[in-house]
Structure formats: structure tokens, C-alpha cells
């Protein structure tokens, strides 16, 4: 069993990077809009289908469609927030929860109606390629996802810190009324933020499909772990999401190895409870009122 520990840790890190990518958009949306976005899993599923059909119909590689899918999902996210969520919620956070849940149910059922519950996966040349690191054979697709996750999280952070739009987003997140008073278009900023979060989930879909499958239910497979990642890392914290994703991946993998795969997820929730017990705001979260 001991010879499996290093491969298990590395394999867990690779899976954790996928969790981090999915959680990145979720934590961004929470950090600014202060809403739990129930559409996140459904949007991940929708993005996976878009990548799948682009591959099937046009023969486009899931990695090469990133420049197409990211803007597309940014626009979709922007329109969802501006056209549906904001006007229908009337500013109430409870309403937002219900609306995102309703949108999620509609997307899931439309996917089931149009694409059936048939499992689909892409057949690509490098699907079975591996990269050898410290004697462990890691799937090429997972290594790519890991590298991109390590690159994207600081990029989004830099965008938030060094650009005018990022500053506006942070201003709205901290003090909505104050941001309005200094001339920031709050509704537009909210929609931009939702758009970026949705683009992040689309990026996760592009990196996930080479090693995974798509069905109308696939979003649920990741979104629960993504919520855990967000809370563990600290609500709204981008570095926290990355670190928590990697940590959960390793914990899940090692628990699966030592306790059995059926009990692998126990480790995730045990870590979650322990962190909340000793640091309720999460790894990188700010305390309420801080």
C-alpha cells in the first residue's frame, strides 16, 4: 500500500485542481453578489455539452474551443444576471436563491429532453496519454487542468486587483451604496461578475471533458464538492478556493486509498467540519465584520 501513497497524493492534486476550477466561479459570484448560485452545476453541464457538440460536429479539440466557449458563457452569464436574476429577484437574496434554483431545474430538464440521459464522452487522440511524475502515471488531461488552475486563479486575482473593472467589482462587493454614489453601474458590475464566474465554469468544462463524460446529471457530481471547496477556502476568496480544492482532492484520494473508495468522501466532509470548527470563516475567509 505504501508504494501507492505518492501516486495517490499526486492523483488527488490533479482531481483537486478540477474542483478548484469549478469552485473559482462559484466563490467569485458569492464574494461579490453574496448569493449561493444554484445554477453553477447546470451551467457546468451546459458548457460540457457545448464542448462535446463542438468536438462532435466540427471536430474541434476541447482545449482549442476555449476561445469560443469562454466569451460565449461570459455573455450567457451576463445575460442571466442582467435579464433574469436581477429583475426577478427585486433585490431579495432569498428570491435569488429560488430563481437560480428554478433556472437550474429548467436547464437540467431541457438538457434531459433534448439530449436524453445518454452518457457521452469525446474520443480524442490523447485521451489515454499519461505524464510520469515521481514514478506516478498521471492522465495528461488532468495535468493540463492542474497547470491551468494554477495559472488561472492568480490571473483572476490580478484582474480583480489591478484593473478598473476589478476595482469596481471589489467596490460593489464591499459597499454597494457607496459604489453607486461614486458612479459605478452596480447592475452592470454584478452582471460582469456573474459573467466571469460563468466563464470560469466554462473553462473547467473545457479542461474536464477530455477525462470525463457528460450527462444532464453531471453537474451534481461536482457542484457539491465545489460548494464545500468555497466554504473551506473562505467565501469569496480566490486563493482559498484554489488551496481548498487541492486539499480536498488529496484528502479524498488518501481516504479512498486507506478507508476504501466508498468512504473516500468522508474525508472531505470531516476536513470541512474540522476547518469550520477551528476557523469558521474558512482558510482565507475574513471574519464577519472584519
Amino acid at each position, binding site marked *: 500500500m505504501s508504494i501507492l501513497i505518492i501516486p495517490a497524493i499526486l492523483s488527488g492534486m490533479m482531481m483537486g485542481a478540477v474542483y478548484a476550477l469549478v469552485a473559482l466561479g462559484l466563490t467569485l459570484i458569492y464574494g461579490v453578489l453574496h448569493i449561493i448560485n444554484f445554477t453553477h452545476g447546470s451551467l457546468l453541464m451546459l458548457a460540457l455539452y457545448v464542448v462535446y457538440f463542438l468536438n462532435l460536429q466540427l471536430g474541434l479539440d476541447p482545449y482549442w474551443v476555449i476561445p469560443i466557449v469562454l466569451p460565449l458563457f461570459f455573455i450567457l452569464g451576463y445575460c442571466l444576471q442582467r435579464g433574469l436574476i436581477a429583475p426577478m429577484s427585486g433585490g431579495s437574496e432569498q428570491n435569488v436563491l429560488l430563481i437560480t434554483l428554478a433556472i437550474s431545474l429548467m436547464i437540467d430538464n431541457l438538457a434531459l429532453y433534448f439530449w436524453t440521459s445518454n*452518457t457521452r464522452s469525446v474520443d480524442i487522440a490523447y485521451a489515454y496519454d499519461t505524464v510520469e511524475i515521481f514514478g506516478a502515471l498521471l492522465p495528461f488531461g488532468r495535468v493540463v487542468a492542474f497547470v491551468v488552475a494554477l495559472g488561472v486563479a492568480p490571473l483572476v486575482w490580478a484582474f480583480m486587483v489591478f484593473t478598473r473593472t476589478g476595482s469596481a467589482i471589489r467596490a460593489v462587493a464591499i459597499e454597494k451604496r457607496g459604489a453607486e454614489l461614486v458612479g459605478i453601474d452596480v447592475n452592470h458590475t454584478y452582471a460582469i461578475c456573474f459573467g466571469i464566474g460563468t466563464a470560469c465554469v466554462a473553462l473547467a468544462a473545457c479542461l474536464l471533458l477530455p477525462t470525463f463524460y457528460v450527462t444532464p446529471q453531471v453537474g451534481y457530481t461536482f457542484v457539491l464538492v465545489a460548494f464545500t471547496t468555497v466554504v473551506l477556502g473562505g467565501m469569496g476568496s480566490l486563493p482559498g478556493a484554489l488551496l481548498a480544492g487541492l486539499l480536498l482532492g488529496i484528502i479524498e484520494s488518501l481516504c479512498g486509498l486507506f478507508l476504501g*473508495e*466508498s468512504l473516500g468522501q468522508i474525508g472531505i466532509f470531516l476536513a470541512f467540519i474540522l476547518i469550520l470548527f477551528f476557523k469558521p470563516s474558512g482558510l482565507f475567509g475574513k471574519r464577519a465584520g472584519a
Partner: protein
Amino acid sequence: MKNTFNRRSLLQGTGALALGVSAPSVLRAQTPIVKVGVLEPLTGNLAYNGTQCAAGAKFAAETINAAGGIKSMGGAKIELVIVDAQSRPEVAASAVDTLVEANVCAFTGATASALGLASSQAAAKYNLAQVFSIGTAETVVSRGLPNVFRFTPGVNKCTSIALDNLKLLNQGAGNVVKTAAIVHEDGPFGSNMAKILTEELPKQGIQIVETIPHPTPHRDFSNIALRVKASKADILIPSNYINEYTLMARALNQQRVELKAIYSILGGAASNIKFVRENNEVAQYVMDCNHWYDPTKAESKALAAKVAAAGLDLTYDVMVSYATIQVIADALERGASADRQKMIASLAASTFDKSIMPYGPTKFVNGDNTSAQPVNTQIRGDKIELVFPKQYASAEAVFPMPVKKN
């Protein structure tokens, strides 16, 4: 000018008009119709399998109708009443009411045991026969319901025959397989299968070196592949559903796990042409013991051609559903009646031996067709070949599988 429009001519005209209007219905009445229900999950988690089953039933009805329908009933045409079970047992049970209202003589379905258990229980109240296309759980036939007829084999028979066939294959190859790893989903289906295998494999001289349960869904099979690799098992016996089967097969390939065979029993993907198409490299030489038709029969070949022309996948769902409609048609032919009670009696006395399945004459004992048997399939190139038993085989079994070049 004399008016010719009198009472007599009015009556004649009205009579002619009434005859003209009623003529089509009179003509229609000359072609009797017998209604047969198809209760399948057309939406929900099992939609793919349910839709395939419904397609199989349609192909069978078309073939029977084109051949003159039910001759003992004046050439009555089979009209299918297709109802969606929505992949939910409670919906499957309530859908039986729809079938009764439509006046079906019997029905087929319902892809998963859980759905079939619910629907057959509901149908028992109406004395309505259900001929199971697929329903492997033994509780399907152990409840003593007189309206239940399972045409295909259950899990006990599938496992028993799978182990017998494995023994023969292994003996033929000089007993090269000495150790086995079992990877199974941790629900009742996979756990029960693993329990039977743990008891039976050592009797064949095959030592179990690793048993790995996993949840459904499961996101990452890397650790499982590593454990199978470390166990140095000769053969892997998986029992899981299509999504996990696909991820597992990929992980085994990526971790360069060298096996002499992957031998599934009622495998989630191993007899699914979609798995072959989308994961062709890792699917090669994977064996399964599952439901499959007799590919040597002319009607089987005709069905394969129709399925291809319709752009559908030729899966075992299509085959078993086709066969169950054949069984119902035979019962109608012998009973010459669409009466529900007579249908139950006619089905119970069935000795039908002309279905597309590789079965002998049908013999229902407590609703279970004792002549039903699974067969061994193997993925070869872009096809699923029947390799065992030899009298139905479309290709020779390759066992053990060739060593992969990594």
C-alpha cells in the same frame, strides 16, 4: 315544372349519405386491431435504455404486422400503446392505469427491476400480464404473481452461467487465470454480485486478490486502477454502471494495468456499442456475459439492418424488447383472444421457440423462463461479437487477450 324532390328521394339521399359517411369505419372494422402496451422509461436516468426498448418493440410490431398480423384473430394488427415510466417506480405503477384504459391485452417493460416490480404489482390488480424485457432481480419472479412473465434470465442464472463459461474459457486456455480482482459499485446490484463471486470463484481455483467497492457516481478511478495493478490479478471482474465502467476502463489503460482478461457480468458498458464507439482503444477484447440475440438467425439479421437504417444503436435493449413482443404475439396467436385472463393462461403455456434470442422453447415456471440464458460477448474492433456458446457464436473468443503495447 314538376318537383322531383319528394320524401322517398330524401330518404334515399340520406341513406346514401349515411352509408358514405360510415363506409370508412366499416372498412376499418374489417382490419381488427389488438393493443399491446410498452411501458418503458422514456425520460429520466434510464431514458437511453427505455427508448431503445421502445424502438425494439416498434420493430417487432412492424415485422409481425407486415407478415399478416395475428392470423387466428383475422389478421389483427398489433397496435402499440407506449407509455413513459419516467425512470420512477411510482410513475411506472400509475402508468399501468393508462394501459388498462387503453385496453391493452398485455404489456412489456420496464428496463429496470425497480420499475418492473412496481408496474407488475399494479397490473396484478387488473389481471394484466407483464412480459419483462429486462428485470434481473430475483424478486421479480419470487412474489408469486400470476401476471408476471420474465422472458430473459435473472441475476442468479446470469452469474452462474458466466462462471461456468469462464471456467470453460480458462480451461481451454490452459488455466492461465489464477487470480482475480473484483471492482463493484457498492449498491445491491454490485455488492450481491461480488458476494456470489467471492463464494464461487475459489471453487474454480481462482483466488480473489482484491475486492474494491466504489460509490456511484465516482469521479476518479486512478486509485482503483493502481490497486488492481498492485494486486497483480490475472483477471478483472467489474460490476458497475456505464459511466463508472467507462472511467474505470480509461484509468486501467492510463495506469498500464496488464490483465489477461476483463470479464464483466451484466456489464454496464461492455455490451454497449456506444462504449465501443467512444472508447474503442480501451474497449478491445473486453468480455461480458449478458442478454444478446442469436446473430445467426435471419430475423436477427433483418433487425440489425432495420436498426442501422434507423440510425439507432443495436443494443441488447432493442433485442430483448423485440423478443418479448414476439412472445406476446405468439400467445395471442395460440389463444386467439385479447382477453386479459386468456392472455395470462396462453403465456403460461408458451412453448415459443422462434424468438430472436438464443433460447430453447419457452417454459415459464413461476413466471421465470427456464430456457433463457445469457451469452458471452466480446468487443472486437468496432463490433460486439457473440463468442460463447459456440453454436451461436459470430466469432471465436480471444482469451486471454493479447498483451497491450504501452
